[in-house]
């Protein structure tokens, strides 16, 4: 899952930055075997992230402008927050995790992770299931979150706000 996501993100970003790029050029610049590249391009076309146009010599790829629905905008809002993004990536990779496992994975204190988990659960992006005294968390729609992770692009403003929050230690790292 992690490798696939990373590969698709790289493909998407190259097509976004070089509109009209063709298959051979993509292979050369991304250093991905052609079979895997074709499979990922097919998946991304099916998911409406990109589209292709065939000219005389090549099939050229372009990113699709898409309008986001309310639910998608909500997920993107959380993806803009670095700790939430890391939590969601870990949940996508492992399926179900509890607070302690996530806290170890994202290297933040359990109370900070809990803060973000409650926000994510409150907005319906993840589901919370209590087993005894432990709460397990799962991404409600992994397909959609994975898709939006490919489209997500960190802006300068978001990294600036993350730095500001780090400076005031609102997202406490584990000591």
């Amino acid at each position, binding site marked *: 899952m992690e490798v696939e996501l990373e590969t698709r993100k790289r493909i998407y970003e190259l097509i976004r930055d070089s509109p009209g790029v063709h298959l051979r050029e993509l292979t050369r610049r991304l250093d991905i075997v052609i079979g895997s590249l074709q499979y990922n391009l097919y998946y991304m076309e099916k998911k409406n992230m990109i589209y292709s146009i065939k000219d005389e010599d090549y099939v050229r790829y372009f990113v699709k402008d898409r309008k986001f629905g309310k639910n998608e905008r909500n997920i993107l809002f959380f993806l*803009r*927050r670095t700790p939430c993004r890391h939590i969601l990536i870990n949940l996508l990779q492992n399926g179900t995790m509890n*607070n302690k496992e996530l806290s170890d994975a994202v290297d933040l204190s*359990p*109370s*900070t992770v*809990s*803060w973000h*988990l*409650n926000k994510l659960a409150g907005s319906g992006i993840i589901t*919370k299931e209590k087993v005894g*005294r*432990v*709460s397990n968390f799962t991404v409600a729609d992994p397909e959609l979150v994975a898709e939006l992770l490919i489209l997500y692009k960190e802006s300068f*403003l978001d990294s*600036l*706000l993350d730095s*500001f*929050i780090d400076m*005031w230690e*609102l997202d406490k790292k584990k000591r």
Partner: protein
Amino acid sequence: MISEPDQLITIVSSLLALVLFSISFLAYVRERRKKLLLLSAAFFFYAVMNFLDAGDIYYPRVGDYLEVWGSLLNFVVLALFFLALFTKEKIDDGS
């Protein structure tokens, strides 16, 4: 008019305080944490304090009046930073 280097520094400080207020307020809008609201309020009043200082360049005759407000804002800014420092966020640990 701006004629002295210290006047220019006052103007630049005011603008910098305004930038810091914008960043802290945007961080609050994104995160909705009380600590960030206190910080953005502190930077806002700090910017106001600096603009009052800068105002002294253009309206020197209201100097005494501005000084009182300046001192008061100075206290407000420090109090807000102090409050932000000791603000604990209520966190439900989910267990």
